[in-house]
């Protein structure tokens, strides 16, 4: 009981994150936004991508070419080592092409 109580606490403390997808990442995942509990053990953008790839073929296709995927955490560009924590908004998208 002590073990499972600890796990439950950890999951609660982890809270939720919002993940956004733009351009062809939105098309491949089939969603523009999903809210999820911060997966256990995920503390960085890179770890989050690993976890998302395992969700299904759409997500796997979206992240198939990881070096062409860009990320922003809380609306700030972020690399794979950037921390991800409870309440964060994490966005994935291709290199920008405006202007």
């Amino acid at each position: 009981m002590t073990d499972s109580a600890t796990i439950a606490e950890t999951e609660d403390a982890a809270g939720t994150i919002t993940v956004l997808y733009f351009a062809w990442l939105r098309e491949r995942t089939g969603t523009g936004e999903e809210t999820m509990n911060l997966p256990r053990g995920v503390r960085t953008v890179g770890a989050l991508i690993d976890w998302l790839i395992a969700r299904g073929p759409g997500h796997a296709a979206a992240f198939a070419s990881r070096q062409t995927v860009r990320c922003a955490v809380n609306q700030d560009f972020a690399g794979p080592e950037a921390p991800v924590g409870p309440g964060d908004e994490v966005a994935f998208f291709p290199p920008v092409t405006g202007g």
Partner: protein
Amino acid sequence: MSKPPTIRVQTEDFDIGAEFAALGRGRTDIGGLGCFVGTVRDTAKGRLIVSMTLEHYPAMTETAMARIAADAMQRWPLLGCTLIHRVGELLPGDNIVLVLAASAHRQAALDAAGFLIDWLKTRAPFWKKERFIDGEEAWVQANAADDEAAAKWATGR
């Protein structure tokens, strides 16, 4: 003496003359205004385009644009600047983006306009999708030339 930047993301067209007038209104300290306006071309890699759709990341866009503007104001002695970017569906010939920089000196105004468009192209969360005449659609790919153009300003930092 310098005004806060004007930053807008909008679906409707902008009025270029009105933006020049707004930036210069009531001022007599401006010596020159540098401007770039980007428009939708009807071809990409030899294929005819019938429309272009611009997607963006609303929560991030204006912050990113404000940061680019603030950076320009810090690098050059600007008296003001304007950044307007359209989103949604656009047709060939339509305006996409306007950058405008005012300074006492012409070189600062022109250099800042070049900087603003180079950084908008590489640091603001917009994505273009082109629809071709055969009905096919494709996301525009970022190109190395844009990254190089942006990088030249980084070295001067």
